[in-house]
C-alpha cells in the first residue's frame, strides 16, 4: 500500500469513528433509561416544569427528528448554550482548552523524561534489586487514586512545607496573565520576557503536573522496559557488542533508538488520557481548563456543557489516534503493509 492510500484510508476510518461517536453521545442521553429533563429540572421541580424543559430540549419530538436536529447543530459547530455562563458551549470550551493543554504537555514531559530512563535502567539491570523496585513502583502508581494523591501533595507541599503556592488557578492573584499568543502561560511569558509571570506559572503547574506525571509514568516504564529487553536480545545489539562498542554506546545509541518507536504509541495514549482524565486534578487545583469547566457543569446540571465536553474529548481522541497512526507509518513503513 502506498503512503497516500494508507493516509486516505485512515482518514476515512477516523471520519466513520467520529460519526459513530456523535451517534453514541446522542443515544447515550436519549435512549438509555433515565430522563435528562428531570435531571435538568432538579429534584424538586413540578411535573409541569419538567414537561416544559423536555419541550424546550426537544425531547417530546420523535427520536429521528431529534437526531437530525442534533446532527445538524453539531456539524455547524453548535454545541448548545451553557446555562451557567450564558455563552455558547463551544466558545467556553475553546477559551479553556489552552489551560488543559499546558497541564497535559508538562505532565507528559515529566512522565516521559522520568519514566523512559527508569524503564531503560530496569531493563539493563534485569533481575536486580533496581528492576524489582522499579516494577513495584509501577504497580503502586497504577493503583493510586489520582484525586487522593493530589490532596496528599497539597497537604505536604502547601500546608506542611509551605513551598507550593495556594492550589487555586494558574497564577497568583496579583500577577496579570501574559499577552495571549499561544494561550500557554509559560510559553507566552517567555515570549514576552515576563520572568515573574513565568516563574509563578511554573510554580502553579508544579503540583498538578507532579500528580498527573506520577499517575501516567507507569506505561512509559513498562513499555520502555519490555522494548529494551526485546531489543537488547536482538542480533544487531549482539553485532554492535561484538564489534567492540562500549556498553553505554550500545544501550543509548543502538538499543534505545529502536525501543523508542513503541513509546510513541504510549505517548499518544497518555496524552489522550491527560487531556481527558484530568477532570479530577483540575477540580482539586481549581485549574481553569475544560475539566474544571466540566465539573462546574456537572454540579450545576449544565446539560449542554457536559454533552459538549464529552463530545470534545471524543473528537480529541479520534484525531489523536489518527495522528499516532500517521506518525507511526512515517517512522516505520512496515506498518503500512498490514
Amino acid at each position, binding site marked *: 500500500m502506498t503512503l497516500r492510500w494508507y493516509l486516505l484510508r485512515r482518514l476515512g476510518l477516523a471520519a*466513520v*469513528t467520529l460519526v*459513530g*461517536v456523535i*451517534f*453514541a*453521545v446522542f443515544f*447515550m*442521553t436519549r435512549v*438509555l*433509561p*433515565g*430522563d*435528562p429533563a*428531570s*435531571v435538568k429540572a432538579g429534584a424538586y421541580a413540578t411535573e409541569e416544569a419538567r414537561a416544559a424543559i423536555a419541550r424546550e430540549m426537544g425531547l417530546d419530538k420523535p427520536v429521528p427528528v431529534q437526531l437530525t436536529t442534533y446532527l445538524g447543530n453539531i456539524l455547524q459547530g453548535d454545541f448548545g448554550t451553557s446555562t451557567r455562563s450564558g455563552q455558547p458551549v463551544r466558545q467556553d470550551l475553546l477559551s479553556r482548552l489552552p489551560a488543559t493543554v499546558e497541564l497535559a504537555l508538562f505532565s507528559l514531559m515529566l512522565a516521559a523524561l522520568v519514566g523512559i530512563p527508569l524503564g531503560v535502567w530496569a531493563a539493563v539491570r534485569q533481575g536486580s534489586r533496581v528492576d524489582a523496585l522499579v516494577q513495584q513502583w509501577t*504497580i*503502586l502508581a*497504577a*493503583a*493510586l*487514586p*489520582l*484525586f*487522593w*494523591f493530589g*490532596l*496528599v501533595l*497539597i*497537604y505536604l507541599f*502547601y*500546608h506542611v512545607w509551605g513551598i507550593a503556592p*495556594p*492550589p487555586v488557578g494558574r497564577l497568583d492573584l496579583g500577577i496579570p496573565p501574559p499577552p495571549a499568543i499561544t494561550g500557554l502561560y509559560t510559553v507566552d511569558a517567555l515570549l514576552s520576557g515576563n520572568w515573574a509571570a513565568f516563574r509563578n506559572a511554573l510554580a502553579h503547574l508544579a503540583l498538578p503536573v507532579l500528580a498527573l506525571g506520577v499517575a501516567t509514568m507507569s506505561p512509559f516504564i513498562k513499555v520502555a522496559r519490555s522494548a529494551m529487553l526485546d531489543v537488547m536480545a536482538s542480533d544487531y545489539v549482539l553485532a554492535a557488542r561484538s564489534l567492540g562498542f562500549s556498553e553505554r554506546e550500545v544501550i543509548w545509541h543502538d538499543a534505545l533508538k529502536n525501543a523508542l518507536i513503541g513509546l510513541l504509541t504510549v505517548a499518544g495514549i497518555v496524552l*489522550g*488520557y491527560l487531556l*481527558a*482524565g484530568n*477532570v*479530577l486534578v483540575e*477540580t*482539586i487545583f481549581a485549574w481553569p481548563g475544560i475539566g474544571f469547566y*466540566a*465539573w462546574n457543569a*456537572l*454540579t450545576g446540571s449544565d*446539560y449542554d456543557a*457536559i*454533552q459538549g*465536553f*464529552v463530545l470534545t*474529548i*471524543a473528537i480529541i*481522541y*479520534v484525531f489523536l*489516534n489518527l495522528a499516532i497512526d500517521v506518525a507511526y507509518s512515517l517512522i516505520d513503513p512496515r506498518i503500512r503493509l498490514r
Partner: protein
Amino acid sequence: MSATTRAATAALGYPPAAMPVDPAWDPEEDLPTAETEPTRWQRAWRFTRPSRASLAVGLAAIGLIAVFAIFGPWLTPYDPNTPDPSAITAPPSSQHWLGTDQYGRDVLSRIIAAARLDLTVAVSITALALLAGSLIGAVSGFLGGRVDDVVMRFIDVLLAFPAFILALGITAMLGNETRFVVVAVAIAYTPYFTRLVRGEMLTLRESEFAQAALCAGNRRPRILLYHLLPNALPPALAQATLTLGWGILDVAGLSFLGVGITPPTPEWGVLVADGAQYVNSGQWWISVFPGIAILIAVLGFNLVGDWLRDNLWRR
C-alpha cells in the same frame, strides 16, 4: 529464567519453548496422555514461583477489604453515621484510631462501612461488563464476516472514549443513582471484554476440537456455548479481576466529583471528598485514610489480576 527454575521445570517434564529440542525426539512417541496433562491452573501455579509473593500480597489486600465488606457491621467501633458534637475533626487517637470528620463521625467506622457498597458496586460492574462483553465478543468472533465487522466498528467507537469520561457523561445525563453508575461504568468496560473474547474465539473457532464437535453433529449455538466459550473465559477472568480494581477507582473518582453516589452514604470517594476542603487547614486524616483504603483494594485486584493475566493468558 534462573538455573533452579529451569531445572525445576525440566524435572516436571514441560520444557519451555526457548529450550533446545532434541532432534531425535519424536512428538508422536511421548504425547502427554489425558491424565498427566496439567490444567492451565496447575501449569500457572508451577511456573510462577517468583511471582507468588505478589499474588500473596494481592490476596491479602482483597481479603482485608472482603472482611470489611462481610463483617463490617460487627467491626465498626462507632456508628458510621452518628455525629458526635464533642469530637469534631479530632485527630487520630486511642479513642478514634483514624480520627473523626467535620461532624464528629468516626473515620475508621465510615471506611469499614463503605467497603460493602464499594465492593458490591465493583462486582456488579464487572459482572455486567463480563457478561455483556463476552457474549457479544463470542457471537461476533464465532459468526465472523459482516456481523463481526459491524460489531467491531461499534466497539472501536466505544473505545474512542476514555472509560472514565464515558461513565461520567452517562451518569451525568441519567441522574445520581447507584444503579446508573453501575450501568455507566459497565458500558465503559464492556468493549475490553468484547475484544478479548472475540480474539480468543477467532482462534478457537478454527481449532480441531471445534471441528470435531461440528462433525459429531452438534448445533452451532451449542458448540459456541459449551465447547468454545468456556475455553475463552480464563483470559476474561484475568481481565475481570483487573476491572474490579479499575471499577473501584472510577466509582470513587465519580463520587468524589459528586456524580453517582452522593453523601451522606459512606463510599470511599465520598469520604475523600468530605475531607478535601480540610486538607488545606491541616486536618489530613479525613481524606487520607479513605484514600488508603481505595489504594489497598485497587492494589489487591491489580496484583492478582496481573498474576492471572501473566500465567493464565499465555497458552
